[in-house]
C-alpha cells in the first residue's frame, strides 16, 4: 500500500476517535445559558438539562450550612424579596466558593433545576460586585476567581 494511503488512514482514525471523544464530551458537559425567567418558564422540563444562570446575589440571602450554601439570585442588581424574577439556589459542591462570591456580587451558577423549584448548583462563579463597573469607559479588570467542581 502506498505510504500516503497508510498515513491518511491513520490520520482518519485519529481524527475519528477525537471527534467521537469530543461529541461525548459535549453531550456530557453542555450547559445552556438561561435567564432566570426562562428557567422559571421551563418548569418540569428544566430538570433534564444542565443550565447556567446568571444573576445578582440578594443582600443577606447567603446561608451557610456546613458545606452546603444557599442563596437567592436576581435578574437585576439590588432587588429584594418581592422581585418575581428570583431563583433560590443551593450549592453543594466540593470546592470552596470564590472569595468574590458575596452579597450583591454577580454570580454564575451551573447546575440543574430540581422538582422542588430550587436550583441545585454544582459550580458557582462570581465576579466582583458591580461597584467597580459603575462608570462606563472606566471598567476595571476584576477578579480572576473561580471555583470549580472537578470532574
Amino acid at each position, binding site marked *: 500500500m502506498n*505510504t*500516503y494511503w*497508510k*498515513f491518511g488512514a*491513520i*490520520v482518519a482514525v*485519529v*481524527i475519528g*476517535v*477525537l471527534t467521537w*471523544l*469530543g461529541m*461525548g*464530551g*459535549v453531550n*456530557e*458537559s*453542555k*450547559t*445552556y*445559558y438561561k435567564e432566570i425567567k426562562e428557567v422559571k418558564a421551563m418548569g418540569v422540563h428544566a430538570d433534564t438539562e444542565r443550565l*447556567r444562570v*446568571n444573576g445578582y446575589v440578594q443582600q443577606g440571602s447567603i*446561608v*451557610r*450550612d*456546613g*458545606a452546603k450554601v444557599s442563596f437567592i439570585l436576581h435578574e437585576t442588581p439590588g432587588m429584594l424579596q418581592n422581585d418575581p424574577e428570583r431563583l433560590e439556589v443551593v450549592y453543594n459542591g*466540593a*470546592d*470552596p*466558593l*470564590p*472569595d*468574590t462570591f*458575596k452579597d450583591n456580587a454577580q454570580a*454564575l451558577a*451551573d447546575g440543574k433545576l430540581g422538582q422542588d423549584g430550587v436550583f441545585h448548583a454544582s459550580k458557582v*462563579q462570581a*465576579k*466582583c*460586585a458591580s461597584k*467597580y*463597573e459603575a*462608570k462606563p*469607559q*472606566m*471598567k*476595571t*479588570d*476584576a*477578579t*480572576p*476567581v*473561580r*471555583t*470549580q467542581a*472537578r*470532574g
Partner: protein
Amino acid sequence: MENIGALSILLAFCFAIYAVVASVVGKLKKNSFLIVSAERAVYSVWVLVTTASGLLIYSLLTGDFRLAYVAAHTDSSMKMIYKFTAWWGGQQGSLLLWSWLLATYSTVVVFMNRRKFRDMMPWVTTVLMVTESFFLMLIAFVLSPFAVLEAGRGNIVEGVGQGLNPLLQYWTMVIHPPMLYLGYVGFTVPFAFAMGSLITKQPGDAWIHTTRRWTIVTWLFQSAGILLGQGWAYAVLGWGGYWAWDPVENASLLPWITATAFLHSVMMQEKKGMMKVWNMVLISGTFFLCIFGTFLTRSGVVSSVHAFAQSPIGKYFVMFLAVGIAATVILILERLKYLKSEARLESVVSRESSFMFNNLILVASCFAVLWGTMFPVISEALTGEKISVDAPFFNRINIPIGLALIFLTGIGPLIAWRRSSIESLKRAFMMPSIAAVVLMGVLAGFGVWEHPYALVSFGLCMFVTATIISEFWKGASAIRAKDGVGFLPAAITLTHRNTRRYGGYLVHMGIVFMFIGYTGAAFDVNVTKEIPPGGSFALGHYDLHIANVEQGENDTYAWQRLTVDASRNGSPLGVLYPERRLYKASQQPTSEVAIRRRLNEDLYINFAGLSADNKRAVIQAYVFPLVSWIWIGFWVLAFGTIVCLIPNKVRLSYARTQVVGVAEKHAAVER
C-alpha cells in the same frame, strides 16, 4: 502631564503609519533613503511609546488620582511594586504594554538586521508596524490610558483610588502578565519574517534560521507565563486547582500549542525541505491566535471568570483579524509554487511521520480547545441557543491527546529519518518498553489500575524517561571511552556538541515531570469540615488539629488566622497557618491558603471563614499528590530551553551528519 502622554501615543501612531508607508513605497520605488527613514521611524515609535509608558508609571507611582486609570487600579496604601504592576492591571495599561513590547521588539529587530536581509527587511518592518499601529490606534482613539476623571478636571482630587484587586497582589501575578505578553507579542517577529520571505519570493529557510532563537525565546516566555498563572491559581485561589479550561486560560494555551507544533515542524523543513506551506500556516496561525487571545481576554466576547469587562474594542480586533487572515491566506496561496516540498514521505515508521503525527495531534488539540472555547458563540450563531461546554469536554479530548504526545516524545527522537527497520526499533525501544511495563505492573499491584489513564500516563512517562536517559548514556559513554573523563563531564561535552538535540531532550524531560504532576490530580483527596477550636479531623493519612483562632487588623486588611497542627501516626509534621483577610479599600475577602509542599504530595488547607454562629472554623483541606513536579518540570523545561539557545561547540567531531550541514548552511546565510 497626561497631555504629553496622550500626545506621545498619538505621535507614535503617526510615526508607525509613516514607517509602513515609507517602507512599502521605498521598497517598490527602490528608494533606500525612504527605507532607512522608515527604520528610523521605528526607533522614534519606541522612544514615544516609552515616554508614554514612563509617564503612566510615574502617575501610578505618585498616585495621580485625577487620572481615571490611576484611580481605578491603585490606592495610596498599596506597595510600590503593585503600583508599578498596575501598568498592566487594566485594559488601557495592558494595551500600552503590548504596544511598548512590540515597539521594543521591532527596534531590536530593525537594529540587529540594519545591514542584513536588505530585500526582506522593508516588508518585515511593514508587518511589525502595521500591528503596532493597530494597538496604538486603540489606545490613541478608543481607550486612552490618560483619560482624566470628571472630578479631576476641576482639580478636586477624589479619594485614594480603588486599589488593585488583592487577589492579584501576589508575586507570580507581578510577572505572569508581562511574561505572557512577551510571548504573545514575540510571535509577531517570526511572523513578520515569514511574510517578508513570502512577499520577496524567497523559498528558502532564511526566515526560519533567523527567527529560530526568537521563536524559542518567545516560546519560553509563553511557557513561563502559563506556568506562573497555574502556580498563582494553585497558591492563591483556594481550591487547589491550576487549570479550569476557562476561556482566558485557553486563549493563552492556543498559540502555545501551535508554537510547539511549529518548533517541531521547522526541523522537517531544515533537514528535509518538507512542510514549507505547513510551517507558513503554523506561524501565521500562532500570530493570529496571539492576537485572538488578546481579543478574547480584552473584549469580553466569551464570558469568563476572569471577568474582564465588556469593552468597545472587540469590533476593531475582529476587523484586524479578518483583514490580516485574509491577506495572509491570499499571500500563501499566491506563493504556493515557491513552497514545494523537496522530499517525499517514505514510510509510516520514520522520523518524518512522527513529526507529522506530533503536528496532527497538536493541531487537533488546538482546534478542540478553540472549538470548546468558542462553543457559546458558535452555538448561538447556529441554533440561537447559547450553550457552553465545560471541563469534561476538554479533558476527554486532551487527556488522550496528551498521552499520545508523550508517547511520541519518546518515539520521535530515536526513530530514524526516512524509514526504520524492525531491528533498529527493537534495539532502541526494547529497554524503555520493559521499564514502562514493569512500572505499570508494580503500580497496578498497588491499586492504580482503578485509574487507567493515570496508569498509562505513568507508564509512558517511564518510557520517555528511559529513552532520554539511554540517549545521554550512549553518547556520554562514547565520549568517556575516548577521553577518559567522568560521566557528568562527558554528558556536558555531549550536550555542548549538539545543544539543540540534547537541550531538546531536557525540555522533553521537563514535560515528562509536568505530566507526572498532572497525573497526580487523579488521586486528589479533599474534605470540608466545620471544626471548633481545639477540635481535630483526619484527611488521608494526616491528622489535623485546630489549635487556635486569632484575629487582628492592619492598615490594609483585617485578618483571622488558624493554627493547624499536622501530624501523621502521632508524629508531628509541623504547623500550618491558613488565613482569611478582608481588604479595606475594596471590601474584598481573600483566603491565604497554607500549603505544606513535599515532592510526593502537598497538604493544602484553606480557611473558608467562621461558621454562622462564629464558633466553628470552616476548613477545606486537600491532599494533592505529585503536584510539585509540575513546577519542577517547568524549571527543567526552562533550563533545557536555555541549553537549546547556547551555540554548538564549533567543529563538530562527527562532521558528516546532517546537523552540521544545517549549521554551515546557517552560517552561510548569516554571512
